């Protein structure tokens, strides 16, 4: 009997929750704000769905209701990707050790 592919995706999902659990507990509390901004940025990988939606039109009609929602979603996710990674970068650049500061 074949296993439904959904089961494989579910396995990935559950295992990733466990990976996430252990990885996040090892994040130092002083970096919790960058943690939030970077998780924000990576969750915008939802842009892949938006791109598929945006490209769903054919060359005669690039814009249909579905692709327009896709295009807006692309812009929203792109704000997040660029904003999220850059602001994280900016924050992390500020964390310095004692000696380097002087």
């Amino acid at each position: 009997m074949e296993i439904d592919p959904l089961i494989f995706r579910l396995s990935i999902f559950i295992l990733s929750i466990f990976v996430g659990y252990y990885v996040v507990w090892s994040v130092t509390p002083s970096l919790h704000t960058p943690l939030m901004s970077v998780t924000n940025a990576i969750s915008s990988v939802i842009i892949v769905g938006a791109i598929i939606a945006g490209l769903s039109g054919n060359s005669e009609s690039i814009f249909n209701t579905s692709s327009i929602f896709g295009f807006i979603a692309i812009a929203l996710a792109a704000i997040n990707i660029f904003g999220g990674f850059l602001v994280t970068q900016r924050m992390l650049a500020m964390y310095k050790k004692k000696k380097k500061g002087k």
Partner: protein
Amino acid sequence: MISANLSAIFYLVSGVLFILALRGLSSPETSRQGNLFGILGMVIAVTVTFLSVGNFSSGFIFVLVFILIGGSIGALIAYKIPMTAMPELVAGFHSLVGLAAVFVAISAFLNPEAFNLGQPGNIKLGSLIEMSIGAAVGAITFSGSIIAFLKLQGIMSGSPITFKGQHPLNAIILVSIVILIYLLCSTQSSNLFWVLLAVSFLIGFLLIIPIGGADMPVVISMLNSYSGWAAAGIGFTLENTALIITGALVGSSGAILSYIMCKGMNRSFFNVILGGFGATEDTSGATKKEQRPVKSGNADDAAFLMKNASSVIIVPGYGMAVAQAQHALREMVDTLKKNDIKVSYAIHPVAGRMPGHMNVLLAEANVPYDEVFELEEINNDFANADVAFVIGANDVTNPVAKTDPQSPIYGMPVLDVEKCKSVLFVKRSLSPGYAGIDNDLFYKENTLMLFADAKKMTEDITKNL
């Protein structure tokens, strides 16, 4: 066009890179590299998507244009935003993830063929369930984050908004969401899909309005978690590994942060979410107030105390962020250090409006991170320190949490500030903190109150040192 198997492998690679991005945050040294892994993962995911769709028609140009528009807005925000506004920014970003998830779900619902999910009106059952869950959670994330953003930004009052029948109403709406998803899946009706979205937006709004300003760390973490679950829901719909892995990571990350924040306040998650804290609990301290004497001093007295100390512990709180006093504080500390005084910083888990808020502000002011300590690390040191300088914190220093079982904050872990030889407490007035209770610390023998704006007081002290 590349094969589905190959693109699946690349999505897996980008998922792993995202794990490494979070892993890097275990220490500040590795964190910058971690961020680069995250960016790399994103680039791979986007590139592979282009290649697997393989449609480089004029639509492709528009995709790039929209990425460029969004990207430049995002980059501009990232460079302009002051560090004190980080909680608002994160809340705003969460709302965008939520809305993007909603839009992707809408477009998959309207045009399922593009996603290989069947035909309109005849979408695969599994996909429809995943899609509607993703859309509902996305909508809740969106409207909830908008409210959180408005509250943090001060556009909306930070005090809890409660009304009669709030909890039963929310419960009814939540149940109706489940019923709507069931009906939607059995009828495939697009009207039900729109109703589902509308109701989800409404509940996100209703869930966050009763939660007060100081509980925002929990709310932000919770919305962080929701945005992850929404992404995972969409990931199942699109059968995309990168999205599933990321959704699970972000979901558990936000959940852990909420847990840490709740523990920092010794409150259960449900207690915070049901909200209304502070609005009802203002009875215990109010009666005794104004009757006990306090010692108050000026910058000169404070400077004198600090000059004669050999070690000082600084306790920052949200007030420091409001007054933008972190730079002035660092200058004061520099002067202290020149006089061979040992200085360290003590951070309570829920200080500020989001997890790690104080750490970022201190880092911005060039405070080395190895001088900054968490509650458990530093709490025993207060007994040996000469001066505690409390700037903008209040409830997290209240000894009542340890002594008075009647107090609403009883049991909350607090910084043992009162054990210091002397306590300098910078505050604008004697008004109680967010929890609505009087701080016993104000009336202790060894406490000197400095009534002033945090930034101005710190500057004045520096002048007098």
